[in-house]
Structure formats: C-alpha cells, structure tokens
C-alpha cells in the first residue's frame, strides 16, 4: 500500500529502529543492496535550491540499482507556468515509482502526497519538516553515542525557522531521559508551541540560553544550525543575526571529550574550519549517514507500495 513520509513522526520508533538496522546492514555489506531497487525510478522534484539533499537521494537510488528522474529548478519546470503541486505530483506519478520533493512552501509535500499515486518523501517543505535529515541525525547519534536516551542535546543557532531542529526535538522527545539546551538569539528562539506541545507536555527538561560557551561543557550532542537567509522577509534582520554563534577549536576545548558536533549543512560561518579535524566533528559523517538512511527509506516505501 502506498505510504508517504512527510514528518519524522510518520515513522514509529519501531520503524526508526528497523530503518537504522537496514542502514547499518547497508554500511556493512553494500553489495547486497546493489540491485535492491533495480527497475525502479525515483523522481527528485526540487523547487528550492539544494545540492546535498538532492544528490543524497540520487546517490541513494543509484546505489540501490535504481534510476533517477530529476527536476532541479522550478524555473525549468511546469511550476513556472503555474502548474499546481497536486498536478505536478499526479503527472510525475505516471513516470516514476517514488518521489522525493523539496518545496519552499510549508505543507507542499503533504499536498503532493495526497495527490500522487506513488509514495512521496518530504525532502524539506519550507521551514516546516525535513524528516530524512532527522533520519540522518538519528543514525549519527546512534553510531556516535550508542543510544537515543540519557543525552544532553544542545541545539544552537536558528531555532525559530530551523526545520531540522524542530524535527530532531520531536524525534528525540520520544526517548527517555534526554535533556535539551536551547541556545539562540532572542529573536530566533524555539517557537513556544514546540516547547509547550513537545517538551512541557511530556515533562522533558530544557534550558534556554543565549550563551553557547557557558552551555558547551555539559553537552553530549551539539547541533549547530545556519541562520537561513531565505527564511527572512527582512535582509537587515538576517545580517544582524547571521553570525550570532561561531563554534571554533578554542571554544571546543571546554567541551566533553566525546561530544558529538553535528550540523545539517551547508554551514556558512557557524563552525570554523579549524573544527573539521577534531574527532568530535561529525557533520560530514552525518552527510554519509543521510544517504544510508535514505536508501533504507526508499526500499521500505517501495516494498510497502508493492504489497
């Protein structure tokens, strides 16, 4: 039966475990999956600039032995002629077996999923959700920290518009004994509904601060985010806030030896290049983990669609 993934919460914790197990098996024996999606086509519909997410989906499908149809720029697609998302999804359903879609409008992936006759994976819908990034984050945390519980997780930067942050909080809030430290400028604080509906509702402890250096020593995971220009209506606000936090090697000296530094990438200035050689820098591992999780998800959804 056709099923789409729009939000990380569309996947149960059991399904997350299943996907992680598949991803870890892919890592151990990639040759075993080289024909897993032979004869299948993934359509990547990207209505917003993206390099890594689109390439990750495409690499994932190629490594599964499948093929890729790609729309990389809305300016070259029918959307520029005024075609609706629903009609695009219906049309692409005639050509492909599964869709990965990024769109600047929140909820676009749900509209596509409701219209398409094939599974749709949300590859980012504006500032709303980005479930496969969260899947990459989860596999990284599992591989680096060994567990999803008992962690102090620092989230730093744009917590207001950062869809990856909201998704990660939603995902990690389902596991016991975690604590969040929310580090952001006043203007980019985590929306109150996330704090109320997710954290307070479940009694999950959290602290809010503007001081990264003070928070750093107690963190097990530090999730840095970029202040995204495209989320601002006002350029002045963006320029004022974009360099609020810069993690560098000097600041990292105060952190735990086994800290896991993550970033959904692309970074601009928020992690200095001198952090890259530190063994605690996990953001490029995160990229690779994203590909493995996307492989696992594509396989799962195509298998379910065939049943």
């Amino acid at each position, binding site marked *: 039966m056709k099923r789409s993934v729009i939000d990380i919460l569309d996947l149960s914790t059991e399904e997350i475990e299943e996907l992680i197990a598949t991803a870890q098996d892919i890592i151990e024996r990639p040759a075993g999956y080289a024909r897993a999606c032979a004869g299948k086509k993934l359509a990547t519909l990207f209505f917003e600039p993206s390099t890594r997410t689109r390439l990750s989906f495409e690499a994932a499908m190629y490594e599964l032995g499948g093929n890729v149809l790609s729309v990389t720029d809305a300016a070259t697609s029918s959307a520029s002629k005024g075609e*609706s*998302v*629903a009609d695009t999804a219906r049309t692409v359903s005639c050509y492909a077996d599964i869709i990965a879609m990024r*769109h*600047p*409008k*929140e*909820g*676009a992936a*749900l*509209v596509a999923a409701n219209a398409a006759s094939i599974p749709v994976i949300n590859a980012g*819908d*504006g*500032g*709303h959700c980005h479930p496969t990034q969260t899947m990459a984050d989860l596999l990284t945390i599992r591989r680096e920290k060994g567990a999803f519980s008992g962690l102090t997780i620092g989230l730093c930067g744009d917590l207001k518009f950062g869809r990856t942050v909201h998704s990660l909080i939603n995902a990690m809030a389902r596991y016991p004994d975690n604590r969040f430290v929310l580090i952001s400028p006043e203007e980019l604080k985590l929306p109150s*509904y996330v704090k109320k*509906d997710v954290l307070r509702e479940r009694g999950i402890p959290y602290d809010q601060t503007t001081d990264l250096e003070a928070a750093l020593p107690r963190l097990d995971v530090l999730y840095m985010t970029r202040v995204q220009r495209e989320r601002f209506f006002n350029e002045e606000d963006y320029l004022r806030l974009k360099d609020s936090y810069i993690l560098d090697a000097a600041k990292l000296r105060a952190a735990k030896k086994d800290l896991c530094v993550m970033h959904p990438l692309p970074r601009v200035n928020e992690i200095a290049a001198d952090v890259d050689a530190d063994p605690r820098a996990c953001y490029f591992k995160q990229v690779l983990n994203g590909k493995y999780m996307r492989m696992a998800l594509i396989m799962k959804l195509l298998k379910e669609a065939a049943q």
Partner: protein
Amino acid sequence: MNIDAIQNGIVIDHITAGRGMRIYELLRLDALDASVAIIKNAVSHRTGKKDIIKIDSDISIDFDVLGFVDPGVTVNIIRNGELVEKRRIDMPERLVNVIRCKNPRCITSVERSIDHVFKLTDRKNKVYRCLYCETKVSQ
C-alpha cells in the same frame, strides 16, 4: 422585545454574547433570502447575557462553523411551529474551508483547489492547527 415565532426554521441559541454577528457572517446568512433575526444581549439564566439567531427558513447550516466559533451553542430545529430537534454543538475535530490559513509560507497561500483544513490539536485551549503548515488558530 418581540420576535415572531418561527414556523419552519432554525434557532441558534446560547451564543456567547457578542459572537452573534461573527456566526451570522461565517454562515453567510446575509445572502439568505429569508427573515433572519439577531438578538444581542438577551437575558440568559446560565450566563447572564447571550446572543440568539433565528432563521425563518429550513436551511442546512454548517455545524462545524458553530462548533469552531462558539462551542456549546444550541441549535433548535423547528418544523410546523414545533421543536423537532435540539442539538448542542461541540468543537469539530476538523474544519474544512471554514477559515483560511494566514501563514504566507503555507502552501495554501498559492495552491489552487485545495481545501483549507484545520485539525483540533488542543481541545482544552481550543487550538486548531493548519493541516499543512501547523500554524495555530485559536478562538
């Protein structure tokens, strides 16, 4: 103040005082070719004051609108001068095309031909969220 009794129609009773006009507008009663009376600040034994709308026509009305704007209102259906049905209206789980999402980043701001759907996420605080972008609307 006297408003004639209805023979065939609907009386929306126990409207929170001050909300009668909003319900009138959302139900688009201005477009109805029938007698409609809005009684404001009527005496209520329960709440002190209330609004009442009397519609002298046997139309079908959107109960979801009522449940969203003012949960707890009572709808009385009158036929041949007799009360044939009395319904207390609760908050609906979903609102379809009752209100529009005001988030300019929401897909509903540009996509044609899709319903504006809100789901009830917090009954206690009367919070609805857009199905697409999760933007909050509360009464």
